């Protein structure tokens, strides 16, 4: 190793030192601690703190509320991501066809994305109001109880989340569309391709890779989502909008079962990591441009 290289190595270590310390203490250490907590029965109020092995996990396996929240999380994730991709691509294509006013369009779109999830939740809570909500008024004045009906609450939640996060997918696709050189389209035109053929044979495949990225980002976000369901419905009615994250939070801070709640958190952790790992695999396989 040359002196220069050694010096560079030292510099590199100094550069990453703060990051390593920060991540180590506030992300990695708690990440291990939560697994340790999940193996305990820990109820602070009652001074209960004993090692319990896999008791919490054993209970989770037969806990109907846990499986219900798994189902809810799955439906929420798949539903949100699917809708976001479809709407996002449509929006990106629409903006791309604009000759003037693109900046305004993007601003309108980004309004929904920039606001805090809590603001979005309050917004939709008001929209879904049975008596005075805009949605019911537009639908003809029926007092549909969007957030109180067990069949309607989850779709209503998905709608609210899609509204807020679709712009992210749209912007990603739009940026990718911008990068497609014009001569690709010219060549297609010369070959006599109609608009639909251009769309399906050229545009969408070129969007494919970025869409995969968007799907993965959004899937991770949807699996971890907490703010919007906690504030909009609190997991109700009758647990129909209770995702894993809400269940974990309730177990932790409403029932004060730190051990059991940590076990649910670890499940979320594992689920998200599994999806992230799948992404890393694809990344290495070179399917995604990064």
């Amino acid at each position, binding site marked *: 190793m040359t002196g220069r290289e050694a010096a560079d190595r030292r510099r590199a270590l100094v550069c990453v030192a*703060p990051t390593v310390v920060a991540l180590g203490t506030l992300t990695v250490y708690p990440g291990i601690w939560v697994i340790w907590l999940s193996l305990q029965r820990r109820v602070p109020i009652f001074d209960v703190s004993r090692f319990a092995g896999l008791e919490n996990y054993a209970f989770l396996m037969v806990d109907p509320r846990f499986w219900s929240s798994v189902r809810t999380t799955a439906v929420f994730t798949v539903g949100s991501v699917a809708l976001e991709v479809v709407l996002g691509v449509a929006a990106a294509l*629409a*903006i791309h066809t604009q000759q003037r006013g693109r900046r305004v369009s993007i601003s309108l779109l980004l309004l929904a994305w920039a606001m805090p999830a809590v603001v979005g939740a309050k917004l*939709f809570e008001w929209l879904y109001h049975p008596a005075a909500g805009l949605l019911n008024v537009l639908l003809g004045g029926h007092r549909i109880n969007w957030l109180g009906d067990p069949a309607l609450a989850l779709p209503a939640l998905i709608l609210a989340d899609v*509204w807020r996060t679709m712009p*992210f997918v749209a912007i990603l696709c739009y940026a990718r569309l911008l990068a497609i050189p014009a001569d690709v389209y010219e060549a297609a035109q010369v070959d006599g391709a109609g608009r639909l053929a251009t769309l399906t044979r050229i545009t969408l495949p070129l969007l494919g890779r970025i869409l995969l990225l968007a799907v993965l980002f959004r899937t991770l976000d949807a699996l971890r989502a907490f703010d919007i369901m906690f504030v909009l419905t609190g997991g109700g009615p009758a647990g129909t909008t209770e995702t894993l994250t809400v269940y974990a939070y309730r177990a932790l801070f409403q029932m004060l079962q730190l051990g059991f709640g940590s076990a649910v958190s670890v499940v979320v952790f594992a689920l998200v990591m599994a999806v992230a790992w799948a992404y890393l695999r694809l990344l290495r396989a070179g399917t995604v441009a990064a």
Partner: protein
Amino acid sequence: MNARLRTLADAAVLLALAAYAIPFFWQLLTSFKPESELLRVPPLLPSRLTVSHYQVVIWQSLMPRALGNSLGIASITTILSLAAGVPAAYAVARLPLPGKRLLLLAIVASTAFPQIATVSPLYLLMRGLQLRDTWTGLVLVHASFALPLTIWLLAGFVREIPIEAEEAASVDGAGLVAMFRWVVIPLLAPGLASTALLTFLFSWNEFLFAYTFTVSEASRTIPVALALFPGVFEVPWGDIAAASMLASLPPIVIVIALQRFLVRGLVAGAVKE
């Protein structure tokens, strides 16, 4: 396509997107609607506009204090995150770092980290260190959560800096810090701006940790203050709408005025040509 049709098509797209933003505009309208007309719809439009909701929110609620908290916490988080992230990104992108693969793996894995997973140990940690209800505690947690994405984005931007500039500087005998100060950071400026904006937005919007780690009313951030907005007889929809508008003000300003940087930040690391 002739110019007329083109303009019509453009307008159609604008209209469609304006319709998409209707929930936002409805909330804006609600914030100016008189209390008595809130629950009597139709008619959708109010007979007159009022600023009473804003007055309640500004003079009688916790929102101004929460605004201050959020501004402070988000700003310091951004500064800290960049301060630690820029050197780390540079090291990852340019320097021979022992254990780089492991670090990269940890960073990528951390971007996927669910907040719910660490909220219980962090709660115990904050409790032990007496950092609950302080800016410090929340800033540390926010910064550490924003750090992985910051590094990832910045590493991409660093790689775009022409290596010749750095080589020229080191030939001139510049040390590491001087190199940062005079070469890297100026060239990185647009990327820094994008990353800073994203980090600021993340911290501003963050709810889970802020909700769990604040005790008193005085230390609440915007999302928490909004979620816990008090009502007496019934939910004060008008006041909440006004508070929502105020809470969205910085993000909206960023979105409209600094759109270019924001889009660039969102797209970086994902779209490379």
